C-alpha cells in the first residue's frame, strides 16, 4: 500500500499513520453525538473516509478515501482543505 501525498508524491506506507475515521467533531457537551464521534463507527467494507498523517514526510494531515477490501487508495487530499 502506497499513498500519494499532495505535497510529496507517492510514498511508502511506513511514512504515514492512520488517524481514524474522518468524522465531524460535534459541538457542545458530552452526549449522544460525542459518543458517536468517539466510539461508534460505520466500519465499512468498501470505500472508507479516513484521516492519515504524513509524519515522516511533510507532516500534513490528509483526508484519504480507501477501499478496506482491497487497500486501493481512491483519493488523497489535504485535510485542511475541508471535506473533499
Amino acid at each position: 500500500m502506497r499513498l500519494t501525498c499532495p505535497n510529496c508524491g507517492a510514498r511508502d506506507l511506513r511514512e504515514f499513520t492512520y488517524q481514524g475515521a474522518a468524522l465531524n467533531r460535534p459541538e457542545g457537551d458530552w452526549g449522544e453525538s460525542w459518543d458517536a464521534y468517539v466510539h461508534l463507527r460505520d466500519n465499512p467494507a468498501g470505500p472508507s473516509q479516513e484521516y492519515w498523517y504524513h509524519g515522516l514526510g511533510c507532516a500534513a494531515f490528509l483526508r484519504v478515501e480507501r477501499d478496506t477490501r482491497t487497500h486501493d487508495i481512491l483519493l488523497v487530499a489535504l485535510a485542511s482543505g475541508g471535506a473533499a
Partner: protein
Amino acid sequence: MRFSGLRVLKEGLTGNKGWGPHWRDPAPKPAYDIVIIGGGGHGLATAFYLAKEHGLRNVAVLEKGYLGGGNVGRNTTIVRANYYLPGNSEFYSHSLKLWEGLEQELNYNVMHSQRGVLNLFHSDGQRDAFVRRGNAMINQGDDAELLDREGVRKHLPYLDFDQARFPIYGGLLHWRGGTARHDAVAWGYARGASERGVDLIQNCEVTGIDIENGHVTGVQTSRGAIRARKVAIVTAGRSGQVAAMAGIRLPIESHILQAFVTEGLKPVIDNVVSFGMGHFYISQSDKGGLVFGGDLDFYPSYAQRGNLPTQEHVMEAAMTLMPMIGKARVLRSWGGIMDMTPDGSPIIDRSDIGGLYLDCGWCYGGFKAVPGSGFALAHLLATDRPHDSAAKLRLNRFRDGVGLMDEEGTGAQHNLH
C-alpha cells in the same frame, strides 16, 4: 460416535472405515427459537452450551462459509488468563477453567497444552506493572510467577539477554497458559452441538435482520427467510456489517492482524514467549513450526491479508529477541479481521432491539475466550440475565463512561489496543 483409545486402535486395524461425519448437514427449517449468526468459535460454543446447559435444542447456527473458516481457524492459538482489570479478569479466569475440562466435556482432542506463557519485561517501570498484574491474577485465583533475569535465563537460555537497547529484566510466568489446536476447538463444539440437536447450516449468509415493533422476528439469508424468537450476532470482524442490518452502529472498527509460521523444526521453544518492547510473541506448534505474530497493521481492513511494513517489524522484533530463529524459513503468512473496540475489551450484551443479542469486540484475543463467551452468551440467551463471569462486558460502558476496561491505558482509539 465416541472417541477413545480403544476405538482409535480398532479403526487403525480395520482400515479406518468406521469413522462417520462429525456433524449433520441439515437444510434450514422455517423457524427456530434461537438463531446464532456466525459459525466461528464463539457461535459454535454458544450453541453447544445452549443445548447442554439449558436444554435448548431448537437452535440454528448460520454460517456464510464453512464452519471454522473465520478467525477461529486463523489465530495463533494462545490461551491464557493473565488479565488485570475487573471484568476481564473474572471472565478469562472462568474461560480458562472451562478450557481445563474441555477435552473431557467434548470427548474431543483439542490439543490443549498448558505449556506456560512468559511475558518478558525490559525496564523497571514494566517490572512494576507486571508485579501488579501478577498480584491481580493471583487475587483472581489464577497463577502467576515473577522471574528475574536469571530465572528467565534458566528457562530460555537462547534469548539475547544483553541486547543493549532492550535488555531483559525478567518475566511474568503464567504456567496454566498455553496453546490449543484451533480447528479442533471449532470441530469439537460443532460436533457436540450437532449431536444435541442444533442445526449447523453452512453456506448460509445472513443478508437481513427482520424487526417488527422494536423486536426481532427473524433473518433473511441466502437460503431463504428464517424466523426466530431470539437472534445473536456472533460474527467477529464482520460484526459492523451484520449489526448495520438491524440499524445498529457498533463501537467497533475492523483491523487486520497478521501471523506467520516457519518450516517445521525440532522442539526448541517450549513455552509461549512475548517480547515486551515492540510487540512480538511466539510459540512452537506440535508439528514443529514456529508460530508468531505482532501488532495490527493499524489501518481498517477486510482484506484478510496485510502489508509488508508490519511483516518487517515483526521479523525485526523476532531477531532482536531471539537471533537463533533467523535461519528458519517462513513458510506462510496470513491475516484475519479483528473487531477492535475503543477499550480493547469485548461485549456480550443485549442490544436496544428486543430479542437481539451481541457477542463481539474480541479484538485479537478471542480464541482463549471461546468457551467462556459461549457459556456466558448461552446463559444470557436462555435466562435473559448476564452470567456472573461476563456481567461487566456491557455495550453501554462506552456511552456512559462507566466500567471501561482499557488494559493498556491507550485511550479510546480502536486500533491502539
